């Protein structure tokens, strides 16, 4: 039998933890880019798209979702051991996700309300980001992630360079698209000043305040923003607290800020 010339393509794996699947589907949303991606890399593990699992190690692992069960806490260790680079995609993997709201309450209230025989549910007290468990090479933010940023991250890691993703705030995106500031113009509370850019400032363009899908930007001044909301816009303390308790409630900056408004 003639020996085939084996091209070694880099191996990409996609892992799902507790999440909505939206971030990993952004990969299928790449459409035209998907064809190029399929050419350039070997999709070694992507259960949403395929049953086959190619053995590790993997050159790049994309991890979606937060850790919420004892089994997942072990599984993420295994994923890390098998991965050269590990990148978290989305708010769940990067900050614990919307399900991390239970970290501020008693998880038993949750299991008993939704399920009559909660003893079957194995769940951890907290929903935690991947970085609480293993070393993460890069965190891609957003609920969900921006697919062009995903393409950038994949191409950066496969080429051994740093992803070129600006860590500044949503305000920059409003300025760039020429959206009038909803906070100064209409007095609408907006998390834009402390929120990581990436969505393209969609909500302000619909005259809505940003609600923080992309989580904290680099060095966010949350205290200053909260004081501004309170003094200039008359936002009540409990509403400020709730604003930070969204999809990124368990990220450091947002968690500390919301906790400072707890009595």
């Amino acid at each position, binding site marked *: 039998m003639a020996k085939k010339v084996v091209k070694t393509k880099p191996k990409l794996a996609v892992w799902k933890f507790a999440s909505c699947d939206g971030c990993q589907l952004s990969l299928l949303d790449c459409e035209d880019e998907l064809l190029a991606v399929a050419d350039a890399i070997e999709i070694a593990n992507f259960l949403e798209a395929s049953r*086959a699992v190619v053995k590790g190690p993997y050159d790049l692992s994309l991890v979606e979702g937060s850790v919420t069960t004892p089994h997942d806490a072990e599984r993420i260790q295994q994923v890390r051991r098998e991965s050269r680079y590990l990148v978290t995609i989305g708010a769940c993997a990067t900050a614990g996700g919307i399900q991390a709201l*239970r970290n501020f309450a008693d998880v038993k209230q949750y299991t008993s309300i939704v399920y009559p025989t909660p003893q079957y549910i194995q769940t951890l007290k907290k929903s935690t980001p991947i970085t609480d468990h293993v070393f993460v090479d890069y965190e891609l933010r957003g609920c969900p992630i921006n697919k062009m940023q995903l393409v950038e991250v994949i191409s950066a890691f496969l080429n051994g360079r740093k992803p070129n993703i600006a860590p500044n705030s949503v305000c920059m995106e409003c300025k760039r698209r020429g959206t009038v500031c909803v906070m100064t113009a209409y007095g609408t509370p907006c998390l834009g000043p402390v929120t990581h850019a990436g969505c393209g400032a969609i909500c302000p363009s619909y005259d809505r305040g940003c609600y923080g899908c992309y989580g904290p930007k680099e060095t966010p001044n949350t205290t200053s923003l909260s004081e501004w909301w309170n003094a200039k816009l008359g936002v009540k303390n409990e509403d400020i607290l709730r604003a930070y308790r969204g999809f990124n409630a368990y990220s450091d900056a947002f968690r500390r800020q919301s906790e400072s408004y707890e009595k």
Partner: protein
Amino acid sequence: MKVMPKQIVIDPVTRIEGHGRITIQLGDDGVVQDAHFHVTQLRGFEKFCEGRPFEEMPSLMARICGICPVSHLIAAAKACDALLAVRIPPTAIQLRRIINMAQIVQSHALSFFHLSSPDLLLGMDFDPVQRNIFGVLQRYPDLARDGIRLRRFGQQIIEWLGGKRIHPSWVVPGGVNEPLTEQRRNQILATIPEALEIIVRTLDWFRTAMGIFQEEIATFANFPTLYMGLVNEDGEPDYYDGRLRVVDSAGNVINDGIEAAEYHDYIGEYVEPHSFLKSPFYIPLGYPEGIYRVGPLARLNVADRLNEPKAYEEWSAFRELGRRAVQSSFYYHYARLIEILFCIERLRTRLSRPDILNKHVRAYAEPNSFEGVGMSEAPRGMLLHHYKIDEQGLVTWANLIIATGHNNLAMNRGVLQAAKHFVKGNKIEEPMLNRVEAVIRCYDPCLSCSTHAIGKMPLHVQLVSADGGILDEIKRG
């Protein structure tokens, strides 16, 4: 020789959205006795929305699912409309219908092309390493490209209207955030001809391809059940609103007008001791006789007609497949393609009306009611959001019934039927696994949705003896 009784677990079931697990129980005689799901995680949407302002619900609930966020957006917004107790502007209703149909197209395209076509094109016994969308891309590049383009057609409309494809933010209590501009409308209309060509081409191929799947058609959840779906005043499937109709397996309408607010009188949730998912049933017939199916197959079974030319023709051919109602869940695939065709034609019809550009698209009000229910059709079937609020407009209680949940009983029974037919002897064989998995994929269950409360559902095949000991097990992922 006595065959050892066993249990089979498939974990996880792949190429479905989410993460699932099935257990098949074998009896003393080695014959398949039962099949069911396991759920092991918790996300807790019903709980953490408590104490939050009701206006947040559409954006918050969209996060239940990254595949059909628009469905949750719509059902949540409708429940909020009921809390405001306002009549929303007619153009806002039309615009919500448009984004909802765009999502049905993209979600069905994902289900058919990306997730199921590998089984259908490459064969269920094809090498699993290649049996995926990338394998289809290599061998049937034209069809794979068609699928990718059709999904993009739907996703692009969602992005144009809602700002982004996943978790868009345009639908709000009282209507939508922004009217449609003429330029956008024309942009969407310009993409329709290509989408139509693709779906017509795909249907032509699928009609002939169905011939080679006779065994699967006969054994993939092919049994009588009730069917449930929303219909409009013309008796067409209605994806946004309308009345909930129930038909029996003979195609007789047994209930024609259940209102959203009275769902509790008709839909019960039975909890089976071995199962982690609740099993909804139709209360007037009781459990388990009240087993029903929702989604594409059900919607085409409950409809009287489709008033779009191409879709009507195709639907008529579909209805010929069953004496009264079409029973085999294999036909979910066919129904999905017909719905794509119907939605594309209907999008063109709706967008061509001049009033779609009307600027009045949102009604404003404070909450006028303490309880609201929103009912609409998600790609996988009827979806219900039910909220209660206090005087401050903060949510005090929420209940969600989602499409995959409705189908739970029928899915379990379908797995059982396929397992009985394809499980031979006491070994876990690859072809059996593939077919049991493929039954699940017919329903296109969205496990992110069905476990909105419970997170994800690893679905695994395990052989367990009658006394409960695990004798053999296959775990994947």
